[in-house]
């Protein structure tokens, strides 16, 4: 894939160069002075014209803002319960109605964004760091180191994400009084521990594709150190597929956090999270009598997951020349 991208780039650069070649000047010389479009700027031009990109970007900015400054969206205290108004249906006073404890569903939906966004972004950062480092080493070093690292990764990926999460959170249980950040940190840790080999595999095969190309060999012939080869030549040309998968997986991590909270081993009740809200709303009694308790957090959760999947799709379309 990256091969094709770089050759595509070459073709564009050559076309531009030929168009503007004036008599007496070598095309090759001209090519250097023309400001070539990098893969990133190419992709950006493509992205700018994709409405799905803008929809997902706006949604993500919206939810991230909600996670950082929930006060901007509501002035209701999410921890204020009024049992007399329990399960009240949506009204102008409480847009999304009240839940069975008499909490305001709208306020809790707003405040619930924080857990999801923190887990999604946190896990993605760690998964990316570990996966990229291991993938580059594995693909670049080849030989026995590659074999060892690949087998090592297989061990972790053999444990399905949700099952591993259930296992570790049962052995290291969260208690009701635990600080919020500790629980979020645990969930981030579990996801990072089990999910990095996926990124490593993609990065590894991508590095293996880029490594034998002419420009890498040329740089090596010029005496570039391995570190410089990786930093300026291999990384920029092999990272594209990783970005796509990481964006889509971010949505999946958010779903995992919500599922763990739903099962009762993720965040614990004084904390506010969409997974917890859906869990509390999902008993047959609540579903029958107060479906609004279920529907609003569900919509928020699904929209967040959807926006990251859409962003990943849009970035893939922009990076994959075959689809143009």
């Amino acid at each position, binding site marked *: 894939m990256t091969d094709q991208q770089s050759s595509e780039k070459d073709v564009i650069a050559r076309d531009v160069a030929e168009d503007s070649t004036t008599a007496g000047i070598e095309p090759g010389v001209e090519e250097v002075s023309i400001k070539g479009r990098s893969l990133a700027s190419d992709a950006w031009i493509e992205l700018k014209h994709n409405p799905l990109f803008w929809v997902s970007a706006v949604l993500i900015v919206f939810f991230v803002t909600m996670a950082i400054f929930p006060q901007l969206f509501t002035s209701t205290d999410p921890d204020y319960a009024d049992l007399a108004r329990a399960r009240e249906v949506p009204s102008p006073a409480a847009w999304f109605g009240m839940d069975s404890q008499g909490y305001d569903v709208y306020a809790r939906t707003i405040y619930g964004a924080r857990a999801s966004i923190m887990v999604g972004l946190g896990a993605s950062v760690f998964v990316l760091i570990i996966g990229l480092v291991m993938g580059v080493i594995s693909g670049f070093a080849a030989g026995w180191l590659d074999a060892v690292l690949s087998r090592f990764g297989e061990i972790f990926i053999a444990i399905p994400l949700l099952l591993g999460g259930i*296992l570790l959170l*049962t052995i290291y*249980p969260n208690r009701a009084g635990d600080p919020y950040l500790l629980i979020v940190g645990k969930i981030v840790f579990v996801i990072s521990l089990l999910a990095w080999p996926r990124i490593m595999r993609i990065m590894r095969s991508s590095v293996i594709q880029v490594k034998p190309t002419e420009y890498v060999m040329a740089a090596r012939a010029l005496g570039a150190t391995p570190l410089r080869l990786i930093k300026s030549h291999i990384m920029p040309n092999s990272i594209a597929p990783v970005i796509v998968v990481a964006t889509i997986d971010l949505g999946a991590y958010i779903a995992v956090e919500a*599922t763990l909270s739903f099962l009762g*081993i993720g965040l614990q009740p004084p904390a506010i999270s969409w997974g917890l809200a859906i869990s509390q709303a999902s008993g*047959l009694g609540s579903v029958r009598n107060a479906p609004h308790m279920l529907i609003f957090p569900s919509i928020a959760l699904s929209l967040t997951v959807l926006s990251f*999947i859409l962003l990943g799709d849009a970035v893939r379309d922009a990076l994959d020349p075959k689809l143009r």
Partner: protein
Amino acid sequence: MGQYAIRRILQMIPVVLGTTFIIYASVFALGDPTVGRCGERACPPAYIAAFNAEYNLDKPLLVQYALYLGKLMHGDLGTSFYGNSVATELANRFPTTIKLAAIAVFFEAVIGIAAGIVAGVRKGRFIDSLVMVSTLVVISIPVFVIGTLAQLVFGIKLGWFPVTATQGTLWQLLMPGFVLAALSLAYVARLTRTSLVENLRADYVRTAKAKGLSRNRVIAVHTWRNSLIAVVTFIGLDIGGLMGGAVVTERIFNINGVGSYIFRSINQKDATAVVGAITVLVLIYLAVNLLVDLLYGVLDPRISHD
């Protein structure tokens, strides 16, 4: 092929050892295996000493692990909080869960592949967009939301399906099976579409068309089978996701299977039961992975001849 099979099986050994070691170490060496065995309070020292002796925790780590592996191979998963053998409890519940998973795989394969083919053949038309958008929506809704909504709409409001599946009959498991399948079904449809579209552009398709085959025959005989390789692999590998989903689905629909056993044990803070059940599920997942890899070698001869 024989050589390929042997290599795959040999490669599996370190993975099985590594995975069981991670589970073992995180539970018995690093964690506190007596979590929840004495309710909400900490266990008395005498109990801990007896427990440590029973599970060989007073021996060096590698000896402990070897003894644990030996027990595992004999099907001994320890005893739950109530003194029942975890292995027996699981064996009683597996038939229901397998039935549920089989229904899910059936929906996944039949509806997923059909939708993918319809979309791929009519790429860019309305039906294609419909499949793409609806699968995207399904992918973004977590399974516990789909489950609860299905229960609300089809079980309570419309009354088409039983709301819960306590007896685990085929009819009762139909809706839970579909809910469990939903996410994978969407992925299967998208994957089938993508590989069909890619294969339709391949040279051999042009040759087949050039020699005068009808479009339907080209798709039915040539492309369809080639596109299926990736899909079969996905369905096999997805068993891991299905098992995680089963915990959620069985909790929602009150199905008495392995998933709800895990959920109940989580709530009772019965760590031994959770660990035992999850170890078995991970081992099954690994076995299915190996089978899929071997099947892959049969389906695609290029793989086994490298």
